[in-house]
């Protein structure tokens, strides 16, 4: 009763918002979160500034002002853009190639019980070898150029995506496969029209992890030797010639990673309702 009365005699502002289709409660919540974030950011910046002053060596531990200065400087010079471009190019190239091949490998291996069982021990073993451990070998094979780093990212993406694709293939419902048989589908038709679409949520989940691994691998690989890239900036910081840039690079890495992850969450939600509704959570 009270609720009904409230709606009928609600303030004009509230009904104005409702006319625009904005839920008042959500707006308030979003506003509070934003306020909390701003206040805490302010607190962190203050803490940072205090920490830097207390440390006393601005060359080694710069404050937020120095970092912002160095960042703007590099932005103008184009160093940051070049570094980001180089790192992103490697990630995108390696990730794309690795994911696509990983899907194909996962579909093929996942469809054959025999191949699955044969490769199982190998897969289990190599899961525990960090991709970066192969860097030395890859350097010997491909030299110190772009391909070495891209190959490494291809490796880690392929591995993760193939594993997740195989899980998706294994989880295709039996009735679905049977229905395809009733329809007279050939193997390639079954793979392309049934198994692949059905596995998409798993593939996306795998790609999400692969993207994270790609970022980690590219930074480490660049730290070990490259001409340009975010890892190079960090590496330079180790010889303490350009430390503020290191902090800037860390911030950029965070934002890039966040952006990529949000993209995946968007994809997963879009694919999710159509594909997994009724079959439960996937990742």
């Amino acid at each position, binding site marked *: 009763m009270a609720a009904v009365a409230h709606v009928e005699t609600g303030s004009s502002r509230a009904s104005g918002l409702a006319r625009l289709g904005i839920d008042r409660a959500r707006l308030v919540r979003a506003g509070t979160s934003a306020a909390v974030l701003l206040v805490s950011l302010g607190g962190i910046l203050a803490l940072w500034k205090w920490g830097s002053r207390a440390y006393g060596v601005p060359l080694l531990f710069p404050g937020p002002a120095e970092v912002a200065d160095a960042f703007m400087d590099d932005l103008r010079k184009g160093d940051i853009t070049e570094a980001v471009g180089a790192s992103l190019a490697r990630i995108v190239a390696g990730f794309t190639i690795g994911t696509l091949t990983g899907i194909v490998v996962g579909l093929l291996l996942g469809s054959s019980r025999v191949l699955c069982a044969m490769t199982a021990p190998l897969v289990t073993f190599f899961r525990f070898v960090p991709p970066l451990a192969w860097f030395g070998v890859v350097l010997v094979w491909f030299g110190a150029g772009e391909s070495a780093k891209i190959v490494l990212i291809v490796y880690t993406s392929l591995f993760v995506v193939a594993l997740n694709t195989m899980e998706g293939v294994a989880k295709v419902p039996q009735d679905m496969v*049977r229905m395809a*048989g*009733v329809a*007279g589908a050939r193997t390639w*038709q079954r793979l392309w029209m049934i198994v692949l679409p059905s596995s*998409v949520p798993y593939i996306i989940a795998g790609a999400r992890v692969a993207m994270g691994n790609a970022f980690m691998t590219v930074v480490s690989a660049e730290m070990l030797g490259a001409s340009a890239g975010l890892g190079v900036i960090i590496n330079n910081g180790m010889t303490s010639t350009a430390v503020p840039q290191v902090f800037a690079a860390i911030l950029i890495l965070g934002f890039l990673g966040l952006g990529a992850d949000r993209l995946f969450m968007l994809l997963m939600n879009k694919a999710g309702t*159509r594909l997994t509704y009724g*079959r439960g959570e996937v990742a």
Partner: protein
Amino acid sequence: MSVDTSAIAPLLQMRAVTYGYKASLPPIMEDIDLDIASGEFFVLLGPSGCGKTTILNQVAGFVHPQRGELLVKGERITKPGPDRAVVFQGHDSLLGWLTVRQNIEFPLRVAGVAKSQRRRRVDHVLELVELGAQEAKFPHELSGGMKQRVQIARGLVTDSRMLLMDEPFGALDAQTRSSLQLELSAIWERERRTVLFITHDIAEAVILADRVGVMSAGPRAYLHSIVTIDLPRPRTRTPEFNALVDRLEATVTAAKARRPLEKEDAA
């Protein structure tokens, strides 16, 4: 109108079909002999564990018998095919990323049927199952009854000889089940296919079937008896209907106990 099963060559023949999981264990079913005539609506009735779904799976070609053979139009069944369309018990076979229309036309796309013909055929079955208004919806937006209608439409869209239905209305509420039974009966009268329908619901069997095959309990299940339902369609709860239900109940009781029907079974 009942079917004269003697004159025309049967569409489906089962000869001494025996099925079990392991050779060392007793088979689930043994020496099943059954003929189903072309255009007949045959219902297989029985308790759980008697293997009636497994019979359907063998007719569909999903599994193979240990001994004996299954023939459709005189040829051995070796694998699944569009001539024996299947309506599954659950909704797993519906493709969640495709619309209702796309789900129904799936067998036609696989077979490479041209777009215009596909459109015509799908329009026809959509009208049959009365799903025209939902053709652009996705499976997760449909009710249970609608999802089963999609499966039925998919089963009818090809030139299938047989429609195999595995307890399709089992998971639905009583009301939806009733209306779908009547719908199915009406559809079948328009699109005469041979139907093999599995159920454990006796009333459902009497509403739908030309003949009802009653399975005994397993293991070593056998085909206990075949009861002919000679009532005009659509079927309502007349005294004749109820008498047949009673008779089937008695038969099922005897079949569960794996003994012949006796006078005492009549309630």
